[in-house]
C-alpha cells in the first residue's frame, strides 16, 4: 500500500532525513518513534506529498507521488501535528468541504460524513463552530477530516496531542479498527502509545531509520534506547 525508498531531505542546510525506506501492507500500524527533531514530521510530510524529497521515491497504492501526485494524494489521509481546521466553520460543514475536495459528493458524502462524526465521537458538537471547541475535539475533527474519504494510507503526526486518557483509548481503538482494511503510520514520542496501538515500530534518530521491528513481544524502551545510543 505504501512504499518509500531511500528518502533524503535537507532543510535549512542540515540533513533532516537520510536514506529512510519504509514499506506498509494492509493491516500495518506503524509507529514512528524518535526524539524531538529526529525527522518524524519531515518523513510524514514527504509521505503525504507536502514536501518533495531531494532524492528517493514514494508510491501509494501503485501511484508515484512524483509522477501522479493527485492520484497518490487522493489515497492518503493526513493529520498534521496541528489539525488543519477552520475556526469559522461548523464541524459538519468543514467535514463536507474536506470530502468534496477529495472528490466525494451526494449521498456518498452525506453517509460518510455522518459515519465519521459518529466514529470520532463528534455528534454532540457537529453543529458547533470549530473555533469554540476544546483542543481534544479539534484534534478529533482533524482525525475525521483525515479519514472521511477512506484513504488507503492514514498518516498521523502525533495524533494523541491534546487528548485525555479516555479520548486516547477511543482514538487507539479507532486506529486499530481502521487498520483492518488500510495501513496507518503515526508518529509519537510516547513509547506506551506505540506499544498499545502499533504492530510495527520504526525508530528514527538524527534523520536515519535505526530500527524497524514488529512491536509484539518487544521491550520498546530497551529497543528505543539501544537504537538511539
Amino acid at each position, binding site marked *: 500500500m505504501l512504499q518509500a525508498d531511500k528518502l533524503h531531505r535537507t*532543510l535549512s542546510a542540515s540533513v533532516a532525513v537520510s536514506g529512510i525506506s519504509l514499506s506498509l501492507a494492509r493491516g500495518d500500524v506503524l509507529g514512528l518513534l524518535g526524539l524531538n527533531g529526529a525527522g518524524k514530521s519531515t518523513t510524514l*510530510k514527504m509521505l*503525504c*506529498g*507536502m*514536501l*518533495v524529497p531531494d532524492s528517493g521515491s514514494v508510491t501509494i497504492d501503485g501511484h508515484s507521488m512524483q509522477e501522479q501526485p*493527485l*492520484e497518490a*494524494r*487522493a489515497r*492518503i489521509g*493526513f493529520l*498534521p501535528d*496541528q*489539525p*488543519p*481546521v*477552520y*475556526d*469559522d466553520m461548523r464541524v459538519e460543514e468543514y467535514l463536507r*468541504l*474536506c470530502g*468534496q*475536495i*477529495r*472528490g466525494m459528493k451526494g449521498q456518498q458524502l452525506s453517509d460518510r460524513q455522518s459515519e465519521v462524526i459518529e466514529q470520532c465521537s463528534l455528534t454532540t458538537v457537529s453543529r458547533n463552530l470549530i473555533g469554540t471547541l476544546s483542543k481534544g475535539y479539534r484534534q478529533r475533527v482533524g482525525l475525521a*477530516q483525515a479519514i472521511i474519504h477512506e484513504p488507503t494510507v492514514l498518516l498521523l503526526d502525533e495524533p494523541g496531542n491534546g487528548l485525555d486518557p479516555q479520548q486516547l483509548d477511543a482514538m487507539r481503538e479507532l486506529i486499530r479498527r481502521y487498520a483492518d482494511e488500510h495501513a496507518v503510520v503515526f508518529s509519537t514520542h510516547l513509547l506506551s502509545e506505540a506499544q498499545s496501538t502499533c504492530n510495527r515500530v520504526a525508530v528514527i534518530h538524527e534523520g536515519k531509520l535505526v530500527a524497524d521491528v514488529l512491536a509484539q513481544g518487544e521491550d520498546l524502551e530497551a529497543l528505543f534506547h539501544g537504537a538511539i545510543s
Partner: protein
Amino acid sequence: MIITIAKHQFLTLARSAQTWMIAAILALLFGYLFLQQLETFLNIQDQLSLQDYPVGLSGYMSVRYLQPLALAFTFVAPLFGMRAFSDEFSRHTYALWQSSPVSTAALVLGKFIGMSMVMLLLVLIAVGMLFIMISFAPIDLPIVFSAATGLALCACASMACGLFFSSMTRHNVVAIISSLALLVLLWLLGSASFGELPIQAISQLSIASHLSGFFQGYLQSADVAYFILMTLMFLGLTVVRLDSLRQNGY
C-alpha cells in the same frame, strides 16, 4: 473542484467582519460621490450643453463618479486577497490543501474566483446606482457597460496582486503593504514624465493610463489585454510560489 474552492473562499469572505466593514465604507463612498456628482451635473448642465460635443448625464457620471471609484477599487481589492494564503499559513490549514488531491492551479483559480465574486458584487452595486437615474434621464448603456468592465478588470488585477503577496508571507500586514506599494508604483508610472524611449515605454505599464478609455466609453483591446495579462501574471506567479513551498517547505 474549482467551484468547491471558490464557494469556500466566497463564504469565508462573507463570514468575515472585515469584508462587511470594507463593503460598508465603500457603500458610503459610492453614495457620497454619486450624490455630489449628480448635484454638480444639475448645476452645470446648461454650460455643458453649449459645448461642441455636449456630455450627457451617463458620460458625465461615468467620468466623475465611476472613474474615481477605480482608484478606490484598486487599493481595496488587495484587502480581499491579502488573507487568502497568509491566513492559511498562519493557521496551519494550508496542510489540508497540500495533502489533498487538489492541483495548485485549481486552488489559486478557485480562491481567485471566490474573491472575484465578492468584488464583482461591489462593482455591481457601484454601477447599479447609475440606474437610479433611469426614471428621469436616459442611460447610455454602452458607456456604463464600458465603465463597469474597466472597474471589474482593474479590481480583479489588483486582487490578483494581493493574492500573490499573500502567498509570499504568513503575515497579512506584510502582504497588504507589499501589494499596495506595488499598486501605488503602477499608478504613479503614468503620471511621471519620462524622456525618451525606452524609458517612456515604462509609462505604458501604468494602471491609470489604461483605465481612462473605459470611462469615456472606449473599450480598447490593448487596455483589456493589459488588465487580463496583469491578472494572469499574478495568478501564475502565485502558482509558482505555492509550488515552490513543496520544494522548500513553509
